[in-house]
């Protein structure tokens, strides 16, 4: 499957103008996507006066004061820690809940199975911003307003449909023979799920967990609605207050943004192949 296109084009020589056009398009996209972000990252190394004078794209000398301010002045480390706790908590919870639901749906015939799949697929397209009033009030009603647990529960629900569908596709791709043998040997449902299926599902489960980690790390709206006190703020919520907190310290603010952006990029670069495979596996199965 992969590498197919190299064979496809053998015996065919691409004219030079086409090659140039291809790279021109790629260069155009690279600039359109990365210039604004790159500009901000570079500006984080400038001084305030240098940014305001808009004189050059690159810093005159690379100073790290912005990064020092970002880490010491506004409690960024605390916000990053909050984000980390919430994202890890939500990833674990959603993977456990979604696996426990996706496995039987992928493997067994029971009443309501197709209804569950259809319902959860519909959940994928519910426009969540439409639900901000009830979500906020439910969290308040169960006494979880301004708690990380409340946000973790909400995230687990929001990302449940996508996790369920990806994991279902994954379980469908696993061979059934080992499970059948285990059933013959008299293993019960939980033994099969925990001792046999879970250890075999490392790739699928970790893909979903990484994706949910990145999604929840980046989520802003519900974090803003649920977490009101400063000491529980996630990094994304904190961004909202950066402008007033950093007051006219632009390098500090840009450095803080750079740090917040770096975490998911780091996660992605390390685990790239796995994430790409996970995304495409899910999409092909619908």
């Amino acid at each position, binding site marked *: 499957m992969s590498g197919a296109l190299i064979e496809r084009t053998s015996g*065919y020589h691409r004219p030079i103008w086409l090659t140039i056009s291809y790279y021109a398009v790629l260069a155009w*996209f690279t600039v*359109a996507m990365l210039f604004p972000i790159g500009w901000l990252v570079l500006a984080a190394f400038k001084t305030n006066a240098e940014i305001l004078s808009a004189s050059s794209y690159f810093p005159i000398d690379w100073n790290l004061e912005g990064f020092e301010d970002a880490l010491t002045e506004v409690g960024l480390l605390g916000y990053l820690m909050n984000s980390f706790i919430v994202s890890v908590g939500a990833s674990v919870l959603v993977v456990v809940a979604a696996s426990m639901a996706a496995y039987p749906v992928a493997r067994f015939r029971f009443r309501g199975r197709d209804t569950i799949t259809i319902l959860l697929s519909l959940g994928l397209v519910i426009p969540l911003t439409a639900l901000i009033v009830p979500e906020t009030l439910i969290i308040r009603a169960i006494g979880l307003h301004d708690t990380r647990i409340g946000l973790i529960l909400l995230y687990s*629900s929001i990302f449940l449909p996508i996790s369920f569908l990806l994991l279902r596709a994954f379980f469908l791709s696993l061979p059934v023979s080992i499970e059948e043998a285990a*059933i013959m040997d008299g293993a019960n449902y939980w033994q099969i799920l925990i001792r046999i299926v879970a250890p075999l599902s490392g790739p699928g489960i970790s893909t979903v967990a990484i994706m949910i980690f990145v999604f929840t790390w980046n989520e802003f709206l519900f974090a803003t609605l649920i977490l009101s006190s400063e000491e529980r703020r996630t990094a994304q919520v904190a961004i909202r207050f950066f402008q007033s907190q950093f007051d006219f310290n632009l390098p500090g603010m840009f450095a803080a943004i750079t740090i917040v952006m770096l975490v998911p*990029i780091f996660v992605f670069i390390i685990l790239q192949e796995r994430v790409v495979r996970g995304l495409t596996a899910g999409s092909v199965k*619908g």
Partner: protein
Amino acid sequence: MQKSFRFAIYLSLLPALALFATFLVFPFFTILVTSFFEWRASGLRFIGVENYLELWDSRAFPSALRNTAIWIAAAVLLHVPLAVLVAVILSRRLKGWKIFRTLFFLPNIVSYSALAIVFLGFYNARYGALNQVLADIGLEHWQRDWLFSYDTALYALIFTWLFHVGLYMIIIMAEIATIPDEIYEAAVMDGAGEIKQDLYITLPLLRNVIGTCMILTVTQSLIYFEGIFLTTGGGPANATLTLSMATYRAFENFHWGEANAIGMHIVILGVAAILIIRRLFRIGERYFD
């Protein structure tokens, strides 16, 4: 054999179904019902379709509808085609294609809230990169306060995500990789160049996946929020007010019934868009086991 498993299976489904029911199904029916109520912090009062009538009569709501429509049009007519363009080119496995694939995906994993600050700086009237570039290439007279001028604000915001095609690019590239080689070999024998192959072979075969991307992008457009909230807040003079921004405004002003009526518009538009796209692209005629 399966009979003895039945209880365990239902137990196993329980956590997911409980989360789903509490935080997705129940809120959904809540907004459906309460969009017919006057709902403020003080209490609920049934008022029929008055929330809807007031919305359609207000000055802000039509702007929100119009801006959302422009937003969706940009997503469907520009964003997804750009993703197809990049995916088709990268699928030709040019030198360095893997690096470009990674580069193009990176903006998709940066949060919209961080990007909001990136673009606040990028568009800034005084020190922003865009005006700096314009000055450097001698177009000073084009300089303006991009995010806070009525005429440019909405388009400036759309530009912030228009080229971030990484996710759809990857989905489409995966689909291209599944097209059998024989089809292309025949075309090459007939002397068809790459552009002809892409137009007459690849594109038609991507119908399903393009439709899927369109559905995803419309849903995304309808709920996009933080990039507006953290930059223009819907202004100037509602120039960037979208349905989701309007929902948040109503929520913040404790007009919960109104917020939910706007929310219902988002839901209905989303469902309509999905049905239309499924129809147009005849999605589901191949997959879905």
